[in-house]
């Protein structure tokens, strides 16, 4: 899915190419953003910031990597920021009554996700929402494949533990 960056290449921009990119990638970006966000509004902010960043770099001819790499990286960064903010909020309001869980966002799985380190949670979301291979995730993040592989392994195992702790179905 993700392209391999070619050093020195400038990715030519057109409104049509941006629109196609939006159509092809929005589902993934939204899936990452919405699961990290408290509501649609927060997720909208993450998605729009990611696409606007892509548009600016791309339309100015400053993009030196495949457009999706920049897009997913900015979306992941936005998701990490949201998850960090939510962790702080959870700490502050932990004793308040919580609404009944209804889906994977606010149910046990969602709560388990938010108990992971934000960076790990965002990585799990990226892999799950985008179906990226380790190599693709490494290319997007600029990390080594081994590092991505071990982080994902640990994060998924911790997610399962937290899910159990949150009362998820076994």
């Amino acid at each position, binding site marked *: 899915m993700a392209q391999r960056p070619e050093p020195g290449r400038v990715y030519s921009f057109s409104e049509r190419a941006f629109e196609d990119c*939006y*159509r092809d990638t*929005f*589902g993934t970006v*939204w*899936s990452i953003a*919405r*699961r990290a966000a408290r509501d*649609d509004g927060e*997720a*909208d902010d993450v*998605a*729009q910031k990611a*696409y*606007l960043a892509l*548009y600016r770099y791309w339309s100015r001819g400053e993009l030196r990597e495949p457009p999706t790499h920049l897009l997913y990286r900015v979306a992941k960064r936005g998701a990490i920021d949201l998850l960090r903010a939510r962790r702080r909020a959870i700490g502050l309001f932990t004793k308040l009554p919580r609404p009944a869980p209804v889906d*994977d*966002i606010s149910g046990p*799985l969602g709560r388990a*996700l938010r108990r992971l380190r934000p960076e790990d949670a965002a990585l*799990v*979301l990226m*892999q*799950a*929402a*985008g*179906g990226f291979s380790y190599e693709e995730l490494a290319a997007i993040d600029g990390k080594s494949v081994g590092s991505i592989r071990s982080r994902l*392994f640990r*994060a*998924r*195992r911790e*997610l*399962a533990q937290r*899910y159990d702790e949150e009362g*998820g179905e076994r």
Partner: protein
Amino acid sequence: MTDRDEQLAGRLGTPLPSERAAAERNWHALSAAIAAPRRGRIGAVRGILTTVALAAVVLVVLGWWQGARIDVAGDRLPVLYREEVARTSITAAGIDASLAIQQKHIENDDRLRVVGVTDVRLGADRLPATIELRFQAAGADAYGVLAHSGVSDPRRATGTTRTLYEAPFPPLAAREQATYRVWLHVDTASGPIDSPVLVIAVTEGPEGQRASDRTICCPP
């Protein structure tokens, strides 16, 4: 890692029911956000062009109204200045002379200089004569001579002489200011005669020398 761990993580990738509505909502918002800076840029360019045009009109009107000149001095920004700062004259029998203090460019100098420009006409009965452009710095005991010339023979056609010259004032250090009394002295066969004294302040600025007339307000 177990299959269960993988399946659990995989559930986080299932499509969300809100995706379609979110895609449309965000596309509208993005389209508006992308279009806004374009309008902003066009507005900014239009504003700059209007300002430049207005500034040009103001400069031209000022120049036309005050006899000012717009010029480039010392390869710097354009500067606006009045060429003539002060003027005086001598009118007597057989003498018609004028002295003007100007700020202008002179040969071999890219920067503005303050010069005294004289135009002296003498009748034959005043000859021989000497003409001096004199100046005296504020606080100085003696005067100096910016230009000196002697005339003796009238032109055959008119029976008069005409002497024209322009003499630059002494150079100053950066940002230095000097105040001078300046006058024209003509020593003729029938006696000496002096023009009224002009008082000018000369300042060394980034674009060169600038002068202002202090004849009325503040003699040295």
